[in-house]
């Protein structure tokens, strides 16, 4: 886990990143029938360890892990067939066809939300997103609207899987990959030696310097030699109660809206 975290670090610092691993040759990839068959296989052979929807359990959260540590289709195929030697990830005895179906399912589970049809009323989700009840715009911007302190959501559907977005809104408890996912997104309060106090997100920090974006979107480049005290939140500053604040219908609509947020609306599968 620790090694993976180190690998994942540079990618997690990014606002948005490439999820389009090289185009695949196998016909199962992106085939809805194969994906459905793969989902069944997943529930029986994998879900016990990786959790429903890949949210993690005894095995890692696949959705988060594969965001930062991408595998090509044939690498995914090999991981499923041969397992990860020396770890709890076992080999399988599935046929080639079944293994490709599973690969197609994992790919769909971890591919951009805008690539698939997402149920829900996106227009209702849009109203909810910009409402005071949700207050997403207190921390997030979409195409220049809203606070620019937190991650930009203009391409959230084009860059993240639906499961990932759902997990951001309803974070699984005790997700082992959650802590390093906060790199570059930590909520901090900085007390400068001259008495100035700044709060916001540390886009980056080390023992020697800190790059902070505040709620107004302003950037503060801080030399740690000038800092008296620094407080870092060990959890996301994003509210964790959206699962109860919203009805199931509201959550579905919000997800449908977020899934359509892509910087290439005319070029993706978004409807």
């Amino acid at each position, binding site marked *: 886990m620790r090694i993976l975290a180190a690998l994942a670090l540079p990618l997690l610092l990014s606002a948005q*990143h490439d999820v389009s691993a090289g185009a695949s040759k196998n016909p199962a990839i992106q085939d809805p029938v194969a994906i459905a068959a793969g989902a069944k296989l997943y529930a029986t052979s994998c879900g016990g360890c990786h959790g429903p929807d890949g949210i993690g359990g005894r095995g890692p959260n696949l959705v988060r892990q594969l965001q930062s540590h991408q595998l090509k289709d044939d690498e995914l195929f090999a991981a499923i067939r041969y397992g990860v030697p020396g770890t709890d990830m076992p080999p399988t005895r599935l046929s080639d066809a079944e293994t490709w179906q599973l690969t197609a399912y994992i790919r769909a589970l971890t591919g951009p939300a805008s690539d698939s049809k997402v149920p829900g009323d996106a227009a209702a989700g849009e109203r909810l997103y910009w409402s005071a009840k949700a207050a997403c715009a207190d921390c997030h911007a979409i195409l220049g609207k809203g606070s620019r302190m937190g991650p930009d959501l203009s391409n959230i559907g084009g860059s993240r899987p639906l499961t990932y977005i759902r997990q951001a809104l309803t974070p699984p408890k005790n997700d082992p990959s959650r802590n390093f996912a906060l790199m570059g997104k930590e909520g901090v309060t900085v007390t400068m030696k001259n008495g100035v106090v700044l709060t916001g997100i540390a886009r980056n920090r080390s023992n020697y310097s800190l790059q902070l974006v505040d709620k107004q979107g302003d950037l503060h480049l801080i030399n740690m030699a000038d800092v008296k005290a620094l407080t870092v939140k060990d959890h996301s500053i994003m509210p964790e109660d959206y699962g109860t604040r919203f009805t199931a219908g509201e959550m579905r609509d919000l997800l449908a809206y977020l899934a359509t947020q892509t910087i290439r609306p005319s*070029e993706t599968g978004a409807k």
Partner: protein
Amino acid sequence: MRIILLALLTVTALAAQVRDEDILKGAGENWTTYAGNFEGWRYSPLTQINLQNVANMVPKWTYHVPESNGLRTSPIVYNGVLYITNSNSVHAMDARTGRLIWRYDDGLAKRKGVNRGAAIYGDAVYFTTTDNYLVALDRRNGALLFNKKFADAETGTISTSAPLIVKNKVLVGSAGGDTGMRGFIAALDPKTGNEIWRTWTVPGKGEPGSETWSDLHEWGGAATWLSGTYDPASNTLFWTTGNPWPDYAGKPREGIDLYSCSVIALDLETGKLKWYFQFTPHDLHDWDAQSWPVLLEIPWNGAMRKVVAHANRNGFFYILDRETGKFLKATKLIDNITWASGIDDNGKPVIIPGKEPTVEGNWVCPGVKGGTNWMGQSYNPGTGLLYILTQEECGMFTLSTQKPVPMKNFAGGAATEPGGPVLIRAVDPKTGKRVWEYPVGNYSRMWTGTVSTATGVLFSGDDDGHMIALDAKTGRHLWHYNVGDTLTASPIIYSVDGKEYVAIAAGTNVFSFGLFEPAQPMALPAITMEK
């Protein structure tokens, strides 16, 4: 201590918009446009690093650019933040420490390719994706403001150059001229990305100049893959254009192929062509007129004259009148030129017959990389000299017997790049004569231009991966540092907190150098993790 605190406060307080007059001022603390100033000088008025203390220059930080390869980016610096681009991405870092602040990646772009840099204006940083989207990002935090397509990659056009921003217009060029496309320069609205005007560098059917083409006219190339320069007094843009396509096959494009291998002068407001000058009519050797046109005022026949200076890939150095495009002078930029015996009084090359690409192959000097290339030239007003990276490389040019098909990556032939001496040459624009030269290698692998300071220090790189400093007046060696990679882009100069830095993207990293200072031991601040 007190100084640092004050500086910290200014970094925050100065969060002001980048205005036209800020860019017009040219380089200083900030480096706000591709070539440092609108005139294309790549010159810094900063004086902290000088001929004596440059010997104490050390690397201050290194930033590794993930998934990069042969970075072509020229950094932009504003308010203590340094911006670089890679294929479909922008990285913003703390210019004092090299720590990443934000990164934007367009993972949905249809093409990947080199990118030469960003531009800055208002509160936004601009760059183009390989598949021709103009992207505007909040310069402070990387939030996406808009992205808007200005050309279709399906028509062979891709985008590689840094936008040039002048008076509320984002000027973008076009690339892809080696596989067939139609070149253009477009002015886009910085608030929306909407098109204000577009000027094609290959005239449409029936338009003046179209008679200089034949069969494949619509795919003629003349790409505009480097940023241009701008003259505020006449409100004119100057832009160079690339080779005609197919690069090595002249048959499908009989005529002089306007406006390929030219410099064109355009009215900023309308994009209307004021004048053009073609360096290589009916080019057959892929000698794009790429390096940007440098704007100077020099004594000429007893009076001061506004001119355009241009070091061309075809091996000659040109001086043109800036107002009219009239040819004034050309001299040999390199020694080895075998395709023309000189440039006549009208600016036309005196062709030596029999040097076109042939099926068997024809050995021609300069080679395809040219006497110089997009690393371009810089100018120092103190020495009055231009600094040009030149190559004494020749090559074998062959002609294909296949029929050219647009966008099939077919250049109509091929050319070899066997290597050859590379030299930085200081050229006096008043005479076109070389004043000094400094050898920087033998293989022509690098792509590094020059930058110089008010204190007469010239920075560049060599073919062996060294960043170097020379005396701008004499070419004397002052300093070198091995970056451990091939140098693939040009250096820039900036300062933060009163400290001067020289930065360069090389291979897969960005380096920033400054004068040696002993480290100040510090006590780590108290850090509390909050539940």
